[in-house]
């Protein structure tokens, strides 16, 4: 398959000042408030945050998969080409071919009355000029590539005949059907058990290496990010609050929020039955206007300045961005 | 039956029990038009058919003078004209409407209470009772409504009482099925198990827990079936077996009008229009309430 060579070698996705406003009934929700990041070819970015932080919405905005009532401003460029505001027909040419997504719930994300094979060949034939037979062969190859045994038989089966882990592999096969440059995995392993989770993540990384893709995976699980990502971006209340290469982030956590997330991860070396340190309070109401730092109410490091102005995301140390007036000074050990 | 997609969402009563606020409407008048307009139409209809004849001067619906036959609308003394034997059309429309509305109301009430109880009881008691009840209902529902009604009306003879009875044979099983589905949904809920564990007696369960929760669903269903019953009663009367001439009913007026359809199309159009408006109003109201109460 022929592909054009990237003009700027390395940089694949550039997101600048992304804002997303959604409508729920007659309320307007500011789901994403000024998000900026970069993803390079062959690299893995983990976007981490709690529910409602805007991580899923931001990625769907980039792919143009939000409902038509959503208002998206800012810029998202794939290899230099602006994706936001593209007419539907043009965006559809890129969807699946250049960027693809794997969704969270494999039970509901596959059409229950359509055979697995057909769902894969649909993706193939949408973008590649292959005959039905050729598309079918390619689909079986994809099923084998995602390590589904008896691929030829599975091709004719329906989603409910497969286990959760296999369904997720099928989702991956669908996403990879046309060898996209960028793969976004939206909580792809959240619905799976721990063992399967590890298998799927290994598979994703392996495929990334083989195909030379960039991988963005969204999760609420920091430990997952620690194990598999090159770079981690932490989101809170629609903004990125900290971003750094994985090693750097975990060695020197600066944002109190990130620090709190890390401390909430259960560890074996804590005394048994001790209370898990949780972050008190709730994320702010996304439909309300907010002055100052969104985390101020729950932050252990809060200062008066925090309630007045929201801190900008800036590169304070080489390769380490954070948005905080009063970051943690001591590195987090562990 | 295979997976029936109908009757599957929860009735609103549950939310009321949980203390949740009713679904917020926009608060402007426009938001209530969907209920207001059909409700007003229905009230007007009832007023016209029940109040006007008793309180205001109106010609007699029967025993008209043959010399006054086939007068057009806006004739002196006959606002909408007269029919082929000289009866006043407006009067027949209103008295006929009264008959049609009464009949449909009676049938629906019987269906609601008798059918609703049977269905809820069957679903609640479950087991053999439910199985037997279901088969019985299946048998009744297997008969096309019109066919069953005709056969029964034929056995019993024409007349309003017999018509009500004949149509009830159709309405009771349909309501029962609806109530059964709703109660089955309810049974799954924890508050039901809690009540049962407290040792609540069956009748109390039915009255205090089940009835209020399935009532919204049954009521909206009742509103929607008002239209259907009126249409079937019209069909029965049209065919000569419901309300017998010369007593008017919209159905037999349409039949009469058909006899002279090319000469006097208005005699068909007037009762048809009234029937249409009545059915439409009930359907709109039922639909609006169903959406509002979030019932399937």
């Amino acid at each position: 398959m022929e592909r054009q060579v990237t003009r700027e070698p390395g940089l694949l996705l550039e997101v600048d000042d992304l804002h997303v406003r959604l409508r729920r009934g007659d309320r307007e929700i500011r789901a994403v408030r000024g998000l900026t990041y970069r993803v390079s070819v062959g690299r893995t970015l983990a976007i981490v945050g709690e529910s409602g932080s805007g991580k899923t919405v931001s990625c769907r905005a980039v792919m143009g998969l939000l409902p038509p009532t959503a208002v998206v401003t800012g810029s998202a460029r794939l290899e230099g080409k602006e994706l936001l505001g593209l007419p539907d027909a043009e965006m559809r040419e890129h969807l699946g071919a250049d960027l693809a997504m794997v969704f969270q719930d494999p039970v509901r994300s596959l059409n229950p009355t359509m055979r697995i094979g057909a769902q894969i060949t649909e993706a193939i034939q949408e973008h590649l000029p292959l005959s039905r037979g050729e598309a079918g062969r390619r689909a079986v190859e994809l099923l084998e590539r995602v390590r589904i045994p008896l691929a030829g038989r599975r091709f004719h089966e329906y989603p409910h005949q497969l286990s959760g882990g296999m369904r997720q592999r099928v989702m991956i096969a669908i996403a990879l059907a046309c060898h996209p440059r960028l793969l976004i995995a939206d909580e792809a392993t959240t619905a799976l058990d721990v063992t399967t989770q590890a298998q799927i993540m290994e598979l994703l990384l392996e495929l990334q290496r083989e195909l030379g893709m960039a991988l963005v995976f969204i999760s609420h699980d920091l430990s997952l990010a620690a194990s598999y990502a090159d770079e981690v971006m932490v989101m809170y209340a629609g903004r990125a609050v900290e971003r750094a290469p994985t090693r750097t982030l975990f060695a020197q956590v600066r944002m109190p929020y990130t620090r709190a997330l890390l401390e909430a991860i259960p560890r074996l070396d804590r005394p048994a039955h001790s209370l898990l340190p949780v972050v008190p309070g709730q994320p702010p109401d996304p439909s309300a206007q907010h002055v100052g730092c969104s985390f101020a109410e729950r932050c252990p490091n809060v200062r008066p300045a925090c309630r007045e102005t929201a801190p900008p995301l800036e590169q304070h140390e080489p390769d380490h961005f954070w948005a905080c007036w009063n970051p943690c000074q001591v590195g987090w050990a562990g | 039956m295979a997976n029936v997609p109908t009757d599957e969402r929860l009735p609103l009563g549950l939310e009321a029990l949980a203390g949740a606020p009713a679904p917020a409407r926009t608060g402007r008048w426009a938001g209530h038009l969907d209920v207001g307009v059909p409700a007003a139409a229905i009230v007007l209809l009832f007023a016209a058919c029940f109040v006007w004849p008793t309180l205001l001067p109106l010609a007699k619906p029967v025993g008209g003078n043959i010399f006054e036959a086939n007068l057009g609308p806006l004739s002196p003394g006959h606002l909408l004209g007269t029919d082929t034997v000289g009866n006043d059309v407006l009067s027949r429309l209103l008295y006929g409407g009264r008959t049609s509305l009464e009949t449909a109301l009676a049938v629906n009430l019987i269906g609601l209470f008798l059918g609703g109880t049977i269905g809820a009881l069957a679903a609640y008691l479950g087991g053999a009772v439910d199985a037997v009840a279901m088969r019985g209902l299946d048998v009744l529902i297997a008969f096309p409504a019109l066919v069953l009604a005709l056969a029964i009306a034929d056995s019993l003879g024409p007349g309003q009482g017999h018509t009500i009875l004949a149509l009830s044979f159709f309405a009771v099983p349909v309501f029962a099925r609806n109530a059964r589905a709703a109660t089955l949904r309810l049974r799954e809920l924890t508050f039901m198990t809690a009540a049962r564990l407290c040792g609540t007696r069956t009748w109390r369960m039915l009255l205090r827990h089940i009835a209020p929760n399935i009532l919204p669903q049954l009521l909206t269903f009742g509103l929607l079936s008002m239209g259907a019953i009126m249409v079937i009663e019209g069909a029965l009367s049209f065919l000569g077996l419901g309300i017998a001439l010369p007593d008017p009913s919209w159905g037999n007026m349409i039949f009469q009008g058909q006899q002279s359809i090319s000469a006097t199309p208005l005699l068909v159009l007037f009762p048809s229009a009234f029937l249409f408006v009545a059915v439409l109003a009930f359907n709109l109201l039922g639909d609006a309430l169903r959406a509002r109460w979030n019932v399937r």
Partner: protein
Amino acid sequence: MTATAAPAVSADRLIGRVAALATSPSLRLAARRLVIAVPVLWGVSALTFIVMSVLPGNAAQQILGVQATPAQVHQLELELGLDKPAWLRYASWIGGVLTGNLGRSLASGQPVTAIIGQRLPITVELVVYALAVSVALAVPVALLAARRPGGLADRLSMGISMAGLSMANYVLALLLVIALAVYLPVFPAIGFVPLTESVGANLRSLTLPALAIGLPLACFYTRLLRADIADQMQEDYVVTARAKGVGPWQVLVRHALRNSLFGLLTIVGLNLGTLIGATVIIEQIFSLPGIGQAFLQAINNRDVPLIEAIVLVLATAVVLANLLTDILYAVLDPRIRYGQRPD
């Protein structure tokens, strides 16, 4: 990458199909429905008999009318075997039904089976035509409406369909006659031309009746289908399809409609009784020599054996049609056809 044999290889596919059918829950479901249908059919026959032969005080009296002398009434009673106890009469009637002898029409003397045999095909054709009309209209309109929920097509079609389903089919029939047979003589107002004579004329003679029955049903189906499609469009698999770059119409038809059709199938099945019942009045209006018209004539003539037989036939038809719908559903829905399989 290793080369693989084409996925359409017969061995794999065949193994899959055979295994699926043998352990198929569909088969068990179908068998179960069949078994349940039997007592229902029995109940249908019992109820028919009770309504027609047990309820009326004196059947012979009713048949002969008020002028009959007691001697005449008694004579008829003996002839009809009305002096025997009810269960015995039922048994002999059922015996007759099962051996294909439904008695003779009191009005014409013809064997009832012959009458029904003559008229049934016409009613069947009408029912099929009306069904085709209703579905053929409902699907495209529902799709157009669901394409842009809240849009013009949606609001217009929902409004019109609400009016349409509030229209009684006999009223619609009369209006259609006024419009399309009297003012614009496009279709015949009454009368039937059999298929054997001319297909075109046959269809023309059945079009207005089929429209009268089918249009209100179409309105009803449109509303339900549109709601179902709109629901399906909210599902996650639709987002997956869009993420593949599939266009909006293909998503609507290939994904949402496909899943909505099951609901439609069920509703169509549930409404078959209404459809069949409607033929009674519509055949009367259009003078179609079908079962419905025979039914009405029998009622007017107090032709008890014929009435009984027709009611039985119609109710049985409904039970069987519902059974067929259930089975069809079980076969078509892959979630039922291929149950859960462990890996």
